[in-house]
């Protein structure tokens, strides 16, 4: 190895978090380019970036045999800090700022009903699938159920109740499938469910929850509807993070004995 290359690699390892910023920044840029050029914005850039992240983790897993995705590659250790529990929770909490309590009140009964039903129903369906696939312990079932809520609620719940990294990855995958499906499918079926007004957009955000999915879909249906769906879906993740490791986990535990 040439001394200059050696120097560069050392520098990147020593400044791991900055390397991660640069790398994730480049990934986001690439994803938004691909999203605009290949899918004409139909598939949201953020969802594409997450898929690239999961793909990178898969490739790293195959090549290193480790369990921590790209973090097992020495050069990419900083990604572990950027995507670690501390900054993850910090960034998630900050998204609550996008919503206000007075706006939530305007949302009315149907908004609250859609939020509660959306979270609980997604969890129940996800948990049911986990049971059907032979999982019987409460931690596994609840983590996969929470993943069907969103790809944020899954890992938050999984981490809180002590699920393994494989389960957390599964729950993220389930949430990602949901996000991508909402993004791609909702514009196609928007007319059949009457999704063309702010009210229905709020219910849509509350039922589906996945913010990137909801915003991506609404941008494709009618950009003026985005803030309405975004508002309810902002509460969805918070509600899911609140209910996942508590009420929903305990209910699962009680039912599974």
């Amino acid at each position, binding site marked *: 190895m040439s001394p200059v290359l050696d120097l560069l690699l050392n520098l990147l390892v020593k400044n791991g978090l900055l390397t991660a910023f640069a790398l994730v920044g480049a990934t986001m840029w690439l994803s938004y380019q691909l999203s605009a050029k290949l899918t004409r914005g139909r598939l949201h850039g953020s969802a594409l970036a997450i898929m690239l992240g999961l793909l990178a983790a898969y490739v790293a897993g195959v090549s290193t045999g480790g369990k921590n995705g790209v973090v097992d590659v020495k050069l990419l250790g900083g990604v572990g800090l950027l995507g670690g529990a501390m900054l993850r*929770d910090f960034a998630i909490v900050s998204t609550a700022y996008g919503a206000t309590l007075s706006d939530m009140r305007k949302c009315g*009964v149907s908004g609250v009903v859609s939020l509660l039903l959306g979270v609980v129903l997604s969890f129940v369906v996800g948990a049911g699938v986990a049971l059907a696939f032979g999982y019987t312990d409460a931690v596994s079932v609840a983590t996969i159920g929470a993943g069907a809520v969103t790809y*944020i609620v899954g890992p938050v719940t999984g981490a809180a109740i002590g699920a393994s990294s*494989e389960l957390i990855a599964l729950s993220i995958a389930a949430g990602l499938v949901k996000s991508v499906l909402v993004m791609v499918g909702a514009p196609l079926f928007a007319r059949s*469910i009457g999704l063309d007004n702010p009210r229905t957009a709020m219910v849509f955000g509350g039922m589906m929850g996945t913010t990137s999915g909801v915003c991506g879909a609404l941008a494709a249906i009618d950009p003026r509807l985005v803030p309405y769906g975004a508002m309810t879906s902002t509460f969805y993740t918070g509600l899911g993070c609140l209910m996942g490791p508590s009420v929903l986990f305990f209910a699962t535990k009680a039912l599974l004995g």
Partner: protein
Amino acid sequence: MIIYGVGLLAICTLFGALVGDVLGLAIGVKANVGGVGFAMLLLLLLTEKLKRSGRFVPQSEQGIVFWTAMYIPVVVAMAAQQNVLGAVKGGPMAILAGVLATVVCFALIPVIDRIGLARRTLARAALDHPTGDGAA
């Protein structure tokens, strides 16, 4: 100052985590119970209150908004460190869970929408044609 926003966000996140830890301890689970959710509620309440009293200026706001914008990149970094290889072995389940949850919830949107509408239409009808007994 921007740090006020960042500081407030950090206080809310830490306090939420503390509440979650204490709640976990109280219920007897070795886990943080809903810490992120409590932190979000606290941030909502505090910023709303500070804004109303005019003490939360746009500059402080930027300290929070920056992290909101960093949320997707952080999730990307989080995705990149998961054990995807392990997840792929359980492939069909993740896909089925995601697909079913989406389809079931999506199909119910018109139903939930109608519940709210019916209530509102009923309320409006009651206002338009007030009946004698006044029971709403």
